[in-house]
């Protein structure tokens, strides 16, 4: 769920969610406004709704909560940025996702476009990638699929023409009517197309979540987030936005890997387990951060 409202007394809502056994995923305070993205148990939603009404805030469903999405542009030059990419990222964020923009080094052109191993690994750290491509069908169907090679996460592609999904190799969804634009997305059909991107992303994430549900994770990522916040003091001094970012299958902790990965592994749960017993802790390609991949039940043997 996403709460939008004033800063005044918003702590009441935070405390209520914690009392109900929910989790605060993200809290952004912008001057006098606050946006809180949270997980709330289904049966207690009415209590949160009542509190929201009391605080004169607004509560909306945020279907992309807890996912980290890469928005990929062929390069960072003004040919591809900022308008379309930023607008799409903004739409995804409004539905609760955490987005990272990835500009490829040599993603331009049709014959000459390429993606490096580093970029591939970086994109693979996300839950889903949205590739923002251009105006020409030939380009999207023939040349750019080279940029999707080696990407193991689902791929959503956007572009201008209407294209059958089958024509684009390795893509999981395609949304038309976007393409390369040099102005901000304001018109009705443009907004509609971006809503469609969000819908496609939501659909794919839902199936991903279902797949995870078949073999549940040993522990829910939001719970790990809470435990890390309580047990690793240094995380409170991190200035990056969202010091602990949730992913579908784990988390990204924005602390230096070499210095802190042992400490993160030692985070313990009341059930007597340590995080390193139920999760893989590895180095992220992004600024040497720490990636935590939570093992499924079939691998660790526990669900807590």
């Amino acid at each position, binding site marked *: 769920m996403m709460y939008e409202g004033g800063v005044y007394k918003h702590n009441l809502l935070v405390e209520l969610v914690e009392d109900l056994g929910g989790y605060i995923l993200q809290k952004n305070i912008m001057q006098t406004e606050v946006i809180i993205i949270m997980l709330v148990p289904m049966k207690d939603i009415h209590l949160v709704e009542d509190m929201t009404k009391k605080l004169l805030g607004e509560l909306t469903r945020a279907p992309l909560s807890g996912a980290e999405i890469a928005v990929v542009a062929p390069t960072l030059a003004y040919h591809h940025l900022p308008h379309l990419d930023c607008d799409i990222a903004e739409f995804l964020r409004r539905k609760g996702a955490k987005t990272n923009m990835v500009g490829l080094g040599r993603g331009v*052109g049709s014959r000459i476009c390429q993606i490096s191993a580093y970029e591939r690994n970086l994109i693979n750290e996300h839950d889903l990638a949205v590739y923002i491509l251009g105006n020409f069908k030939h380009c999207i169907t023939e040349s750019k699929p080279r940029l999707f090679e080696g990407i193991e996460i689902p791929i959503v592609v956007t572009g201008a023409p209407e294209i059958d999904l089958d024509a684009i190799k390795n893509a999981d969804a395609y949304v038309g009517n976007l393409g390369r634009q040099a102005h901000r997305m304001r018109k009705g059909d443009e907004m509609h197309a971006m809503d469609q991107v969000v819908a496609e992303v939501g659909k794919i994430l839902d199936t991903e979540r279902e797949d995870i549900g078949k073999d549940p994770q040993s522990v829910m990522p939001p719970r790990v987030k809470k435990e890390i916040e309580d047990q690793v003091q240094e995380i409170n001094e991190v200035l990056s936005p969202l010091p602990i970012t949730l992913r579908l299958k784990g988390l990204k902790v924005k602390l230096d890997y070499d210095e802190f990965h042992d400490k993160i592994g030692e985070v313990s749960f009341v059930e007597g387990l340590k995080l390193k017993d139920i999760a893989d802790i590895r180095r992220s390609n992004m600024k040497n951060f720490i990636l935590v991949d939570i093992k499924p039940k079939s691998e660790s043997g526990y669900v807590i």
Partner: protein
Amino acid sequence: MEEDEKIMVESPEEEVGGNVYKQVISDVLSDLALGRVIKKVRVYVDVTEPVFIFVALRHTGLASVKLKDFADVEIGEYGKHQVIINLNKEAYIPQLLQKLWERYGKGNIIHEERAVVVVETPDYMNEVDILSEMVIDEKAGEINERIVDSMLRIIPEGFRVRYHQMTREYFLFVASEDSIKQEWKDRAQAILDKLLGGVGSIA
């Protein structure tokens, strides 16, 4: 009707792409305030080749700004080797000072009062005439820069091999990933000829 359109993008088998490209071109031209400089734009894109041809006609006749247009230039008092510039407009001071510093050196330019610039030079009798005819702001040069900038923004980023012609009447760009073929240049020339012919007949 087709002939009258300001921007036209032709793209075989890529109608949607062509239409979106038209929007991109008009956005870029208006971002750089080139709408009134450019008369007509014709673009041919074929991504299968791949080639991008851009031909545009421009309006001519943008005068450059000379010092005498916005200032009174006279010799200094008797016995002093000076030229005095009394400014009527402050808009061009940065460009003016830049040009004066280049020509006479910073030490010889005295700018104590806001609207008065004093130039110290031994040859003040000749310099007074040279100065009043000095071109301070070259509109055409600045517009050329903007046009090149707009081209780089419009052409697909990967098309790094370029061929261009630029005159006071028109400019023509051919861009591709591969080396430029003679047939592309010929096609660009044909588009240009048609455009020049068309405008000529209307005038």
